[in-house]
């Protein structure tokens, strides 16, 4: 003890050996003084949480629409011409929306895109005979079971806050492993379904359709959401309405299930999240690892 000889006060230091008059297990009122509880807790507003959960239910509806189209093609209630027309309309409207919302889309980039898409479509067309006979030796039941589980995996691991496919010129972090697995699961699911179809043109049309949706629908909805929140809400409501209507025509029980899921996601979950906030218990203090205040660019 160098300068504290006159006042025998306990200090929170480790040097100088055992402090005279105090045991090593001495605990005074400064103990845990620097502990901070629930410093980073955000107060959430139920309306905002519900708005945020809208993108989940929107994507759920989009996927249920895809499944609807699959069932209709398998039941042969849609001809391949109408399916192809649907493909082209979807592609065109997707591009149109991207053009409207994105700011950095130039003419050369558009040309680049159309060349890539035409390559993609051609190769898909060439490969469709292979897909056509891909699962011939497997029973339809197992294909349905596999597809259902793949779609469930897809929905669980899907990145609802962003988009796995990046918008042109977007400087964002790489997609996570989970979102990649999700995307691949959806692609495998669509290939499996397409392989049960009777004709090659149908196989081609269905794969093209499902790939368009699984690859680009998240991108399009993400762009729309970034462009305007109102448009996003409107689009979500329209998509949800359309899918509910279509499911209602096809199957009553499925309609109830879908309605329940959408209600759960949009109303019950936000309320639940707000309710469990009061159990939040977060501890911070000097023992925490310091966070760097700059970005590390490797």
């Amino acid at each position, binding site marked *: 003890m160098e300068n504290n000889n006159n006042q025998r006060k306990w200090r929170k230091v*480790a040097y100088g050996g055992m402090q005279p008059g105090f045991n090593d297990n001495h605990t005074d009122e400064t103990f845990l003084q620097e502990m901070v509880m629930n410093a980073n807790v955000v107060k959430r507003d139920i309306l905002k949480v519900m708005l945020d959960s809208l993108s989940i239910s929107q994507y759920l509806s989009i996927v249920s629409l895809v499944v609807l189209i699959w069932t209709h093609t398998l039941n042969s209630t849609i001809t391949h011409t109408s399916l192809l027309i649907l493909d082209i309309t979807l592609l065109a409207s997707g591009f149109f929306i991207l053009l409207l919302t994105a700011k950095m889309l130039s003419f050369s980039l558009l040309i680049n895109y159309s060349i890539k898409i035409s390559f993609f479509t051609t190769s898909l067309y060439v490969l469709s005979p292979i897909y056509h006979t891909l699962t011939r030796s497997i029973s339809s039941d197992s294909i349905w079971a596999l597809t259902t589980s793949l779609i469930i995996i897809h929905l669980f691991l899907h990145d609802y806050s962003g988009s796995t496919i990046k918008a042109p010129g977007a400087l964002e972090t790489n997609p996570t492993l989970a979102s990649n697995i999700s995307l691949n699961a959806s692609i495998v699911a669509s290939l499996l379904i397409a392989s049960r179809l009777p004709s090659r043109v149908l196989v081609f049309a269905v794969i093209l359709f499902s790939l368009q949706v699984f690859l680009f629908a998240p991108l399009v909805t993400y762009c729309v959401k970034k462009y305007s929140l109102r448009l996003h809400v409107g689009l979500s409501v329209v998509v949800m309405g359309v899918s509910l209507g279509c499911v209602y025509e096809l199957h009553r029980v499925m309609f109830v299930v879908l309605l329940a899921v959408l209600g759960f996601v949009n109303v019950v979950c936000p309320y639940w999240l707000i309710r469990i906030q009061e159990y939040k218990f977060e501890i911070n203090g000097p023992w925490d690892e310091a966070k760097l205040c*700059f970005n590390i660019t490797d």
Partner: protein
Amino acid sequence: MLHLIDILLQSINLSTIWCLVFVSEFTLTYHPFFFFVAMESKQGTKHTILMVSDFFYPNFGGVENHIYLLSQCLIKLGHKVIVMTHAYSNRTGVRYMTNGLKVYYVPWKPFLMQNTLPTFFPTLPIIRTILIREKITLIHGHQAFSTLCHEALMHARTMNYKVVFTDHSLYGFADIGSIHMNKILQFTLADVTQAICVSHTSKENTVLRSGLPPEKVFVIPNAVDTTMFKPASERVVMDVIVIVVISRLVYRKGADLLVEVIPEICRLYPNVRFVIGGDGPKRVRLEEMREKHFLQDRVDMLGAVPHAKVRSVLNSGHIFLNSSLTEAFCIAILEAASCGLLTVSTCVGGVPEVLPDDMIVLAKPDPSDMVNAIKKAIKILPTIDPQEMHLRIKGMYSWQDVAKRTEIVYNRALNSSNQSLLERLSRYLTCGAWAGKLFCLVMIVDYILWRLLQMWQPDTEVEVVPDIKISRTNHVTEVHPSM
């Protein structure tokens, strides 16, 4: 005739061989430098302590060093110390180190980062045998990451031994990994007799993580071997100021902060040089920085520095820079200060407790604040006298002092009351709704296994090791690992 001679020769050969064997056994037992003397029963408050950790020599680090030096000083105080760790590659069995420190390398292979596989029960027989063979009175476990330590403490408690645990690290509360670790720590500490932490911050952390009452947790800091870390006899010239960094180059040690700070300091002071000792995944980033700012001639990268050379590297500099993002105690800055270097460090964890304010310049873990701290350090550098600083450190930290304070904790642990299994189980039950019952179940199974083992091989049938007393010659004053 020739045949007969041959037989005769052979028999002579045989007998000489037998003679040699006897002689060698004799010299082994009564070697002039090793007196194996069976000692009488322990008198007074001398304990037989078993130090348990996954981390020990030949591995190298803070915990290993701590166990070794603490054991040496406890031996000097008259206690018997035995170390137990897992096998390191082909190093298994019993080894002796300086001053008769006995080390059991239990044949249990490590699987990840020098940790053994968490298996709960299979370690019980060997730990029981060691405890009985060596007539252990107290078990002292080190480091929360060590599975061997957790298992040994669990078995020791089952067998009604008193246990002490030292926590050497800090842990957060946020991510899944730390939640899991904290539960395990809670399990071990639920029934520990006394606990030791290396700094007050570490104590707060441990109390929060384990729910131990604070008065059961002692703060005994690390120390530094001041005979090993001495300043150079004459001071390095001050025309060029050398800033030394010795740490593993990893994220947790703040290597990314160095990447931001070094170019700025080199820009501000043309007479500053950096010496960086250490290796790790972030070394590439530092080398990139060096090339990007053309600092090849001003930033020296030494790579990994063996512990024996740390002193000479430290003595080539004037300022020691520590950029850790988390640190329970930080022995590195203590070693630097013992060598008479002025320390600049990030103010994290237990670092502000280690040195008095006039021997260290603290900064927030943020590049601009660290640059300011280094500026301040360069300004006050002429007022620093390395020899005086060394003497001050010598007065503040010594392993003998640590051993004496640890002895107090041991005495306290041994004087605490014995508890029955039911009392102990009730303590485990409070650890959590599900975890508590799980912990109880583990302890009950362990208890049953112990009882079965006792039936299979009663305690009295385990052979007790005779105590070894090594002749103490005067030259054994400095403690060094003699490997």
